[in-house]
């Protein structure tokens, strides 16, 4: 065998080995985080259901009282659930990732654990949590007799992926910058907490808004994501306002900005 192929082979083996190592490390951190988050208190996992359940119930009761059960062919329960998922995915992944490095700094004592592993582990654990919670709630609705047929699963998957990436991106920016400007976390909490909740289409669709308001809110990429995920979920709903280019580009740029800032600033932050 020639020298070049031999070298290629060993390079390939290095890449595979590095990949194996990284997945092993990330898997171990996820298990450990799961344990410390949900293992200590029996009710730990129940807590994550409380917020979505309260919202869905409240929204459903309100609609029943107003006599408006029909939401363009979507029941208020499913309408609320499908709106909450991208928002919570974004918000919870963001907050977990932004705290991932400080919260687990001690793990860097192990030679093979990097800050990147800490970020990925937290993000994946949160993704798993949110998706599991929603899968369970949707199943509960099916058992309660609601008609659930996911219209376009692939598009649904795509929209959640964007919300997920957006959350990682903002979280990584915060994690990278906050050692230098600690107050940025409060600022972010103000910006991404309530304002994001009210403008991301959690409890409305873009079509229900007056045009002047809609034009402003459509700058929020998460509104596009929510519209997309609802369109993918329901056969009866098709949003006219999704701009795929804007939404995708925005989320992916934030994601790459976050990861770049992380790789540039993290080492300097840890040295302080």
């Amino acid at each position: 065998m020639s020298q070049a192929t031999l070298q290629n082979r060993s390079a390939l083996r290095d890449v595979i080995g590095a990949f194996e190592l990284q997945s092993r490390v990330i898997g171990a951190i996820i298990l450990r985080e799961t344990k410390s988050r949900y293992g200590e208190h029996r009710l730990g996992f129940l807590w994550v259901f409380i917020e979505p359940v309260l919202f869905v119930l409240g929204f459903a009761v309100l609609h029943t009282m107003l006599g408006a059960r029909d939401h363009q062919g979507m029941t208020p329960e499913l309408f609320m659930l499908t709106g909450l998922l991208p928002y919570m995915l974004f918000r919870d992944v963001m907050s977990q990732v932004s705290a991932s490095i400080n919260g687990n700094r001690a793990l860097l004592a192990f030679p093979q654990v990097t800050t990147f592993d800490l970020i990925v582990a937290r993000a994946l654990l949160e993704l798993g949590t949110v998706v599991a919670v929603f899968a369970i709630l949707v199943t509960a609705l099916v058992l309660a007799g609601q008609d659930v047929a996911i219209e376009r699963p692939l598009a649904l998957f795509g929209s959640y992926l964007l919300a997920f990436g957006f959350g990682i991106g903002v979280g990584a920016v915060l994690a990278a910058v906050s050692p230098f400007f600690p107050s940025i976390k409060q600022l972010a909490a103000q910006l991404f907490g309530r304002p994001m909740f009210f403008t991301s289409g959690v409890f409305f669709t873009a079509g229900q808004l007056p045009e002047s308001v809609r034009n402003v809110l459509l700058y929020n990429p998460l509104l596009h994501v929510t519209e997309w995920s609802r369109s993918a979920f329901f056969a009866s709903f098709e949003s006219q306002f999704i701009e795929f280019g804007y939404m995708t580009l925005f989320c992916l740029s934030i994601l790459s900005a976050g990861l770049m800032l992380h790789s540039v600033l993290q080492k300097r932050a840890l040295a302080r």
Partner: protein
Amino acid sequence: MIRLEHVSKSYKSRYGCVQVLDDVCMDFPKGHSVGVLGLNGAGKSTLIKIIGGTEYADKGRIVREGKVSWPMGYTGGFQGSMTGRENARFVARIYGADCREIEAFTQDFAELGFHFDMPLKSYSAGMKGRFAFAVSLACDFEYYLVDETLETGDARYREKFRRAFEERRERASVILVSHNEQTIRRNCDQAAILNGGKIHVFDDINEAFKEYRLLQTKVA
């Protein structure tokens, strides 16, 4: 093989910028155990942390091949609310070792009894130390990183640990930073001095100690 390539590291302190490592290039080949001597504050702990990846260098690259331990005796990487068994399992997972083997060895060697299934935060300092050393022996590293001390527990346990570690040393390499001649003589076949941001490697271990004593008197 562990290799430092043009590694630099400095700290800002109240007295200005301290250059702990200044463009250091050094090889730690497999099969050799190296002791690095240095005065207090010379940057010994920083060096071991950079080799172990706990801290990052400002400049340069660290190449690590083979299973490298965390700085021995360091317990910060363990989670207090998890039991000894769970912590041992975590270590086994990130090193890709067999969980059951690591657990069994650790439980036996650390002499923790039923405490092995209790949260780590309930351990006494001595128990925690025994646990940390036992896990690192269980892992069968190719490189053991040691910051200063290799001692924990009472005299009997120290002796037991020393014998086990000696046996490991036949297969593994040790990188040890210390200001103690005894520790280095016992564990290393090569010595170096870290001073003023540079590392000077000596082929003759006695030569290193002579130089180091000179350094000490210069400061005093």
